């Protein structure tokens, strides 16, 4: 009782004291506010919960002034509190106070539709003040912070098929991502605290595919490339397993594409497991995995990243020699490994190479002409020297027979490798070329001399 009298006296005294200052500052919270701040303007004031947690009861008058609720009196929200009635309540902890206090909001903000209504039902953990703040309440802008108010909790979205997908965002992952300067609404176009359209998705995959569409708003060049890709084609045909942007790049934790090459290969692996395993055993894959060699090609070097074309199409096939020569005709790169750069030219000079070169120009060719991969392997490219050489040759005769049925076992020998014919490797070819290289000039010089002599004699005779 004495306690209460002392409180009353203090309040009344402070009222007079504060009243003077309002006349200068014209306090927005009105008379009642001034009265409350008489005590709650004291920074020392605090409340101790049962669990020992402390909460400062200090209310900053400046934050109240800029608040959206600057015209609402203290008791407008803090129902049941007044100068005369300052009921004492016991709370388990700070959070339970927050949750209890948030109930007050619904006295005015009754939501009949929209995201808030849904959240009221779905959320136990998130309350109004988590997003909107308390005394310094602001109209919530589309800042990341506002979204995290809800999305750092275990929110989830229900799909029509009954499954749910977590909408909880890992804030740290977002901060590490290349998009850390972007605001949520930059990608989640049309979403804000005010506008938070409700959407119905069939299932999680549908949700992912549709959400991925947002990437094109900035990365239009990549998006148009994907339209020509094998993956998009498959997607169009109704295979929803076909990857969209986020399947390879991730969503919130999106990283730059220029990471270690192996990372890029691993992304493809998540769907193309068997091919990855074959690749891992190839001369390129082994070098990449065991030695972290960044010179070797990974999936995207041959198949491209966004405009991945169907490797079964003639266009892709006919471009393989150029594809391989991106590295294998590069002097500097091949010198490191002691490999010849003549491989492209020697192929192009050969019968198959000529055909493929013309097929590329003709655009109407349907025959599959042997290219690099037919002899050397596709994903299982092996060394042509050393212990693998015999395997290469054994595979070769099988490939030859696809176009040359009835080819004998020694038929692959007709290809005298990528080297200029020399006396040791191909004596017959070398000798024939040598003979003609002497015989043709000899013959031509002889004939031209005869002609000159003939004309000269004729002129002299005249």
């Amino acid at each position, binding site marked *: 009782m004495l306690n209460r009298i002392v409180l009353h006296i203090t309040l009344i005294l402070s009222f007079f004291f504060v009243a003077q200052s309002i006349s200068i500052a014209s306090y927005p919270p009105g008379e009642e506010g001034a009265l409350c701040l008489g005590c709650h303007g004291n920074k020392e004031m605090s409340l101790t919960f049962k669990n020992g947690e402390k909460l400062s009861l200090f209310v900053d008058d400046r934050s109240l002034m800029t608040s959206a609720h600057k015209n609402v009196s203290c008791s407008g929200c803090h129902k049941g509190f007044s100068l005369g009635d300052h009921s004492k309540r016991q709370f388990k902890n700070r959070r339970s106070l927050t949750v209890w206090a948030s109930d007050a909001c619904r006295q005015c903000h009754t939501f009949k539709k929209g995201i808030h209504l849904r959240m009221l039902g779905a959320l136990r953990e998130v309350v109004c003040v988590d997003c909107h703040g308390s005394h310094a309440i602001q109209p919530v802008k589309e800042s990341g912070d506002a979204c995290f108010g809800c999305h750092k909790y275990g929110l989830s979205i229900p799909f029509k098929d009954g499954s749910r997908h977590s909408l909880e965002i890992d804030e740290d992952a977002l901060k590490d991502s290349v998009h850390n300067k972007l605001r949520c609404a930059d990608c989640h176009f049309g979403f804000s605290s005010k506008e938070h359209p409700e959407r119905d998705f069939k299932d999680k995959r549908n949700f992912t595919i549709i959400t991925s569409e947002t990437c094109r708003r900035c990365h239009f060049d990549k998006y148009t490339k994907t339209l020509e890709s094998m993956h998009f084609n498959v997607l169009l045909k109704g295979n929803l397993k076909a990857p969209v942007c986020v399947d390879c790049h991730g969503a919130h934790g999106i990283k730059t594409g220029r990471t270690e090459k192996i990372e890029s290969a691993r992304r493809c692996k998540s769907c193309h497991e068997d091919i990855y395993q074959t690749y891992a055993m190839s001369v390129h894959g082994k070098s990449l995995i065991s030695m972290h060699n960044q010179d070797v090609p990974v999936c995207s070097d041959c198949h491209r990243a966004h405009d991945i074309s169907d490797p079964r199409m003639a266009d892709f096939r006919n471009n393989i020699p150029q594809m391989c020569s991106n590295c294998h005709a590069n002097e500097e790169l091949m010198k490191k490994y002691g490999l010849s750069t003549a491989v492209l030219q020697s192929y192009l000079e050969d019968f198959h190479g000529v*055909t493929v070169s013309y*097929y590329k120009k003709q655009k109407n060719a349907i025959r599959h002409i042997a290219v690099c991969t037919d002899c050397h392997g596709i994903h299982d490219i092996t060394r042509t020297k050393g212990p693998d050489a015999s395997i290469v040759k054994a595979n070769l005769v099988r490939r030859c027979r696809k176009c040359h049925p009835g080819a004998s076992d020694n*038929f692959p020998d*007709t*290809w005298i490798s990528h080297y200029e*014919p020399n006396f040791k490797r191909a004596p017959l*070819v070398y000798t024939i070329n040598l003979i003609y290289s002497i015989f043709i000039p000899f013959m031509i010089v002889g*004939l031209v001399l005869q002609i000159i002599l003939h004309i000269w004699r004729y002129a002299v005779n005249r």
Partner: protein
Amino acid sequence: MIEIEKKNGEFIRRFHPLRIIEHQANAITFIVLVVTGISQKFHNSSWAEWIIMNLGGIDNARVIHRTTGLIFTVLTLQHILTGSYGVILKKWMPSMVINLKDFTDAIDNLKYYFGITDRPARCDRYDYKQKFEYWGVVIGGILMIFTGLTLWFPTKVFHLIPFLPGQIIPAAKAAHTNEAMLALLVIVIWHIYNSVFSPDVFPLDTAIFTGKISKERMIHEHPLEYERLTGEKLDDAHGEEGKEEHGPEEISSAP
């Protein structure tokens, strides 16, 4: 082939119409083979690309080349058969056979060109230059046929002759392409000179088109044959030399 008739006293029949047709057919197949073949050899150059693309692509160019090659093969075979038949059964004179005199003729002619002797070699129906060209075409043609067939049917070759080494295919390609180059150069330089630009025949040796040759040219270029056909003995070299100086002009003005 060797039946020669006199006409108007001025012209002597030199070629049977069938031989004229044969030459024209050979010339056409040769041109087609060169156009489709050389554009494959120099496949990187823009003119070759123009030719191949206008022929409807590399496959078409090859089909044309191979078909024409077959026609060439037939022409060569019929020539060998006709020649053999004529020489063996019909007692044609084997005038194309190379003999010792051709070598001495060549040396004599060189001497004449250098001014060591004052008259050229006296030749029979075909002089050594013509024989050289003829056998070049026949032997080169057979080589082209065999290497060409090898490249056309690369797997069959190993069935026919199993012990052949693999490099027979690139070797056939090397021989085919080099021999073609040689043939083209000989035709362009030697044959075109001798039948078009040579002062003896300029502007054109019409013998292969009309089948006839002027008496003057006959006496000048094939005196031995002329003597054999007519039975008359030609004058000594000096008399002929005098004629020769007017010869070409008369021919060029002749119809």
